[in-house]
């Protein structure tokens, strides 16, 4: 495998950034989407944001990614208040977000090219490295429509990793691939993350996925969304999906998350 990215990074350079939300509030007209969201994620942590569909967790991710402003409160990435997309972050999108007119190679190179990530040779080296890492070698010259959904999302992941972000934002990245591919991608993501430990904020509505991947799960309630619980996941690493699923903690954590999500649902039912 050669050197990992963490080793390759110059000594002393932080390769993971902390994230902090202070009383974040967001409205869409009359609709209160995010209410008093407050948490802090230490540098290098893998945090999943778990919530029912349409609860506002994607809005939260877009706010951290600087794609949408907040109406109150503030968001800090690496200790700095953000105003627009923070240069430390890269996003992996739910619908992959690949340019259909670019080859897999050019898609992976996109972030580096527009951010001016070094000379042409340096870019090429890095792009090859990350294409290799997500097992897309041999498909560099294919177009997105010529490869499967799973492979498209590998390219989306490689594009984000290639800019070597200190914060990786992932918006339900595996929601639109089939279950078997998803499990493979989980294990690959675990392998990649466990080597270089960038900060990850992972949006999902799958309890299992959250447990398998994260150090900590933020459970969100529905409308207005707020973090109702932060559940640490004390499962040792390195992890693999099938091993994690067999552990007694897995079932316990699953129950806890279900209860918390259920309570949110019950409150919702009581209000209406």
């Amino acid at each position, binding site marked *: 495998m050669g050197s990992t990215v963490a080793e390759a990074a110059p000594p002393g350079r932080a390769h993971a950034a902390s994230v902090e939300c202070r009383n974040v509030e967001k409205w869409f007209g009359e609709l209160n989407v995010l209410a008093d969201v407050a948490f802090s994620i230490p540098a290098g942590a893998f945090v999943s944001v778990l919530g029912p569909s349409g609860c506002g967790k994607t809005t939260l991710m877009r706010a951290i990614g600087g794609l949408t402003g907040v109406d109150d409160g503030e968001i800090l990435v690496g200790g700095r208040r953000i105003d627009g*997309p923070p240069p430390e972050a890269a996003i992996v999108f739910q619908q992959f977000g690949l*340019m259909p*007119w670019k080859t897999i190679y050019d898609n992976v190179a*996109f972030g580096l090219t527009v951010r001016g990530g070094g000379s042409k040779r340096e870019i090429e080296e890095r792009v090859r490295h990350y294409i290799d890492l997500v097992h897309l070698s041999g498909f560099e010259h294919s177009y997105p429509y010529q490869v499967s959904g799973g492979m498209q999302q590998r390219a989306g992941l490689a594009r984000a990793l290639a800019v070597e972000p200190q914060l990786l934002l992932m918006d339900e990245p595996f929601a639109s691939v089939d279950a078997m591919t998803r499990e493979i991608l989980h294990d690959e993501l675990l392998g990649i993350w466990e080597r270089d430990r960038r900060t990850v904020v992972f949006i999902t509505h799958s309890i299992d996925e959250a447990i398998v991947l994260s150090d900590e799960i933020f459970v969100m309630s529905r409308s207005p969304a707020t973090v109702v619980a932060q559940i640490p996941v004390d499962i040792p690493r390195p992890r693999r999906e099938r091993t994690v699923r067999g552990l007694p903690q897995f079932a316990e954590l699953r129950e806890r998350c279900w209860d918390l999500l259920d309570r949110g649902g019950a409150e919702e039912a009581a209000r209406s």
Partner: protein
Amino acid sequence: MTAGTPELRIAGDEKRAANRERIRMARRRRRVTMWSVRVSSLAILLGIWQWYGSSVNPILFAPPTKIARAFVTLTSDGTLGTALVQSLTVFGLGMGAAVVVAIPLALVWARYQLVDWAIQGYVNALYATPLVALVPLLILWFGFGVQAKVIIIFSFAVFPLLINTYQGARSVDPGLVEVAESFGCSELKTWRHVILPSAVPFIAAGLNLAVGRALVGMIIAEFYTSASGLGYMVIAAGNTFQTAKMFVPILVVMALGVFLLGVTRTLKRKVSPWSEQEGRL
């Protein structure tokens, strides 16, 4: 995909090969049928034409043999070649000017709301106007020379290009614009990497429409302005009742149209292979 024993694998390979062969044969049969139908349809058409064309007054109609003879005469004395070059020159200039003006203008139009409000009404009104109605006016303004012809062709070609490019730049996937934004793209880079490429299939479709309209413009311009080009050949032969000679430029324009539309259609497929596959995305 691995079969258990070597024997089974060989049997599988043989079946696969036989299947491939069967599909190839079926395709070939289909091609043979298609071409025999096409050729016989053409033969029947020419036969009827020949029979009917020879039996009526030669002022009204001409059989294929006479048209072929006229074609040879007009080619060998250079008349057809000269006319074709004259027509293609004004066509090329008019189309070229339309492309150069329409694409940048449409991009500005799509980008700036104020420009949109200012010009959208006029563009739509002019696109809806049968432009033939403006030809006498254009002749009044620009005379009978090459300039007038180029401007007439330009005015026929420019609107489909304008409108298609505008639509293309407007219908860009907002998700992809967001991707660009998330990687810190400037406005200019967003245009280069996202908006322009996603407008390319629309521009190619606009080019296809524009070519068809520009050909109409070319013939009309040559009917009404100074004596040159294929359009004039049609008029000149018609006025002197040389019907066989009249058919020659008509058939050449027809062939030119088929050729140019084929080129732009191929171009559209080539520049945006993904847009043919949209359903699979």
